[in-house]
């Protein structure tokens, strides 16, 4: 057993700071700001320890740790994307313009400001070091966040989403150049930075309340609507494999797509009791499975090779059990894991 995903603690701040500082482009949801990170880690820890029966302001930070105890990746789930504020997106809609007089009917595409996603849970802020296991860590954290949600469904919203960075070209952001620039009269990186330092609600204050007509946008901006940046195409595929699909929403700043999934349509996993052996018997159905522990205040998940025995117990080896802080006869959440290897696989 190699990598463990676990809930982060304030002790992880230095490792996370380093990853935030390294992320290129900077992550909107992971500012390289020590005070804010400390705050976030403390709040994540407190939220896991508390009894929470519906989603609120909580955010849950996970890290991936190597066998050697090195933290090489982190990711976050916000229980509500909006939290106390609004999470604004552009929703793609179609208006119908029809004239009896001219006997024509046209479909006119628009982007209209939406707050809908405020009430959904947001999976965000995935960052890694350049450790050799970074790709595996990303895959693990993607699955581990879903396991966290399966473990505590009541803490999350019915809809989950991830936002992929939008399309860029030669250092420009065509969607921004065609849309946001008109309203903000600053450059993209400026506003992106402002958005990462706390509230994004200014976006809704500054953008006009009425919809944008696509026929009035320049071609570059229009083509960038809902298009993921080239280095996010793998993430797009990976999320689609997890059951996420393209939503009608795009990011208001860079036009990047939002992928959504219904919490209750994701694999729920099975609660089984752990059975710890020196080694998992070869053959007998041994396969990679994502196992999450159930201890309050210390969420752990890992992909381990295990099997389910004839008594319906989940059999794992001693190392795995130690990594997961699991004792024999303790319940664990077991989710099938498809271990296909991806190519390079950035953020989200």
């Amino acid at each position, binding site marked *: 057993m190699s990598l463990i995903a676990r809930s982060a603690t304030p002790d992880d701040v230095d490792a996370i700071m380093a990853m935030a500082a390294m992320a290129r482009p900077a992550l909107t949801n992971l500012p390289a700001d020590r005070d804010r990170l400390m705050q976030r880690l403390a709040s994540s820890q407190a939220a896991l320890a508390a009894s929470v029966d519906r989603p609120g302001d909580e955010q849950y930070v996970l890290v991936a740790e190597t066998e050697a105890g090195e933290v090489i990746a982190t990711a976050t789930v916000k229980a509500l994307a909006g939290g106390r504020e609004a999470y604004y997106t552009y929703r793609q809609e179609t208006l119908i*313009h029809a004239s009896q007089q*001219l006997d024509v009917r046209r479909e006119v595409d628009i982007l209209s400001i939406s707050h809908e996603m405020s009430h959904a849970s947001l999976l965000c802020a995935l960052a890694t070091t350049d450790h050799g296991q970074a790709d595996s860590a990303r895959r693990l954290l993607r699955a581990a966040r879903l396991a966290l949600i399966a473990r505590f469904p009541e803490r999350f919203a019915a809809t989950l989403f991830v936002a992929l960075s939008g399309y860029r070209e030669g250092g420009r952001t065509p969607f921004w150049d065609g849309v946001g620039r008109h*309203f903000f009269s600053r450059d993209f990186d400026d506003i992106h930075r402002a958005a990462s330092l706390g509230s994004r609600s200014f976006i809704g204050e*500054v953008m006009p309340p009425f919809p944008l*007509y696509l026929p*009035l*946008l320049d071609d570059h901006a229009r083509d960038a609507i809902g298009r993921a940046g080239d280095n996010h195409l793998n993430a797009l595929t990976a999320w689609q494999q997890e059951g996420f699909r393209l939503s009608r929403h795009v990011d208001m700043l860079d036009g990047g797509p939002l992928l959504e999934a219904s919490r209750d349509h994701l694999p729920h996993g099975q609660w089984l009791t752990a059975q710890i052996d020196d080694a998992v018997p070869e053959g007998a159905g041994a396969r990679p499975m994502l196992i999450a522990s159930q201890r309050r205040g210390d969420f752990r998940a890992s992909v381990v090779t295990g099997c389910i025995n004839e008594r319906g117990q989940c059999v794992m080896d001693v190392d795995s059990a130690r990594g997961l802080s699991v004792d024999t006869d303790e319940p664990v959440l077991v989710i099938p894991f498809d271990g296909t290897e991806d190519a390079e696989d950035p953020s989200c």
Partner: protein
Amino acid sequence: MLIRPIEEGDIDALQAIAVETGPGFTSLPDSRDFLIDKIAHARESFQRSHDTTDDAPEAALYFFVLEDDSQPLESAERLAGCCAIESRVGLEAPFYHYRIGQLAHSSSHLELHRTLDTLFLCSDHTGSAEVCSLYLRERWRGEAQRPMRNGTLLSRARWLFMAGFRERFPDRVLAEMRGRFDDDGNSPFWEALGQKFLPIEFQRADHLTGMGEKGFIGEMMPRHPICISFLPPGARACIGQVHTQTRPALAMLNRDGLRFEGYIDIFDGGPTVEAYIDDVRSIRDSRTARVSVQEALSNDERPGWLAATTGAAVDFRAGWVGRGPQDDVIALTPEEAQRLKVDNGDTLRLLAT
């Protein structure tokens, strides 16, 4: 030269004008039925009696012709031009403009405070009066004809009509000016906006609007506001700007106090100019005087005094007179009096111009 209400018998001459103006002059399409209806509507408007206590005057069309009384009677060549006043636009068919408005948007978080110029599709002028349909035929234009000041007569006579029949009009008046076109005769504003939403050519859109068939605008044009900065520079440069040929007309209206207040044509972006009727200089400065017909009067060097009758609307006449009033009396030659169909003791409304 005299201005008078159009009559049924003017139909041939009017149709000749419609042919001459071509499709660009949308209020006079070459359609005999349409023109017959127009004349009938105008006759009914002039003949209508008016209760001066009405709060809101009815919609009426006051359509005038410029008659060259030096031409033989019954000649189609007597009609030198035309002009009109719609007393209340937008009551029978929607009357659309884009209004340029400013939206504040600010964020304390970003220390940003700006306003955003925006086009709103609106019908704010519903119920206003409009001066329109001014056309002077080729033969009465040009350098040689300039001393006749026919264009001024056509344009300003309307103000004297409005001054004399003030109760037939609302508070405000507007005029729509043709917008800017490029050297190939295309409107960059149309290409950037109207064309994106309408499956028809500019000319057809303009024509339908001229015929009062404007339903398609509300159906097909964007009903949400549009940020001006999203339009390409060429289209932005058209906003509120007039066609080269329209500049003299605009200048004349500006001198009368009509101003651009941020309303533009939805197709070509040309400006609407407007004023409170009581503020229009030609109306404010006009005065009345009693007629005294005299032989052997001298004329001013150039036509400087406009005179209009003050009797029944249907008998309205306006034209140049050779001199101004003295002590509330205006001396007319017998020829001038006959042209205006006035006699000693009648009252004329006069404007120095």
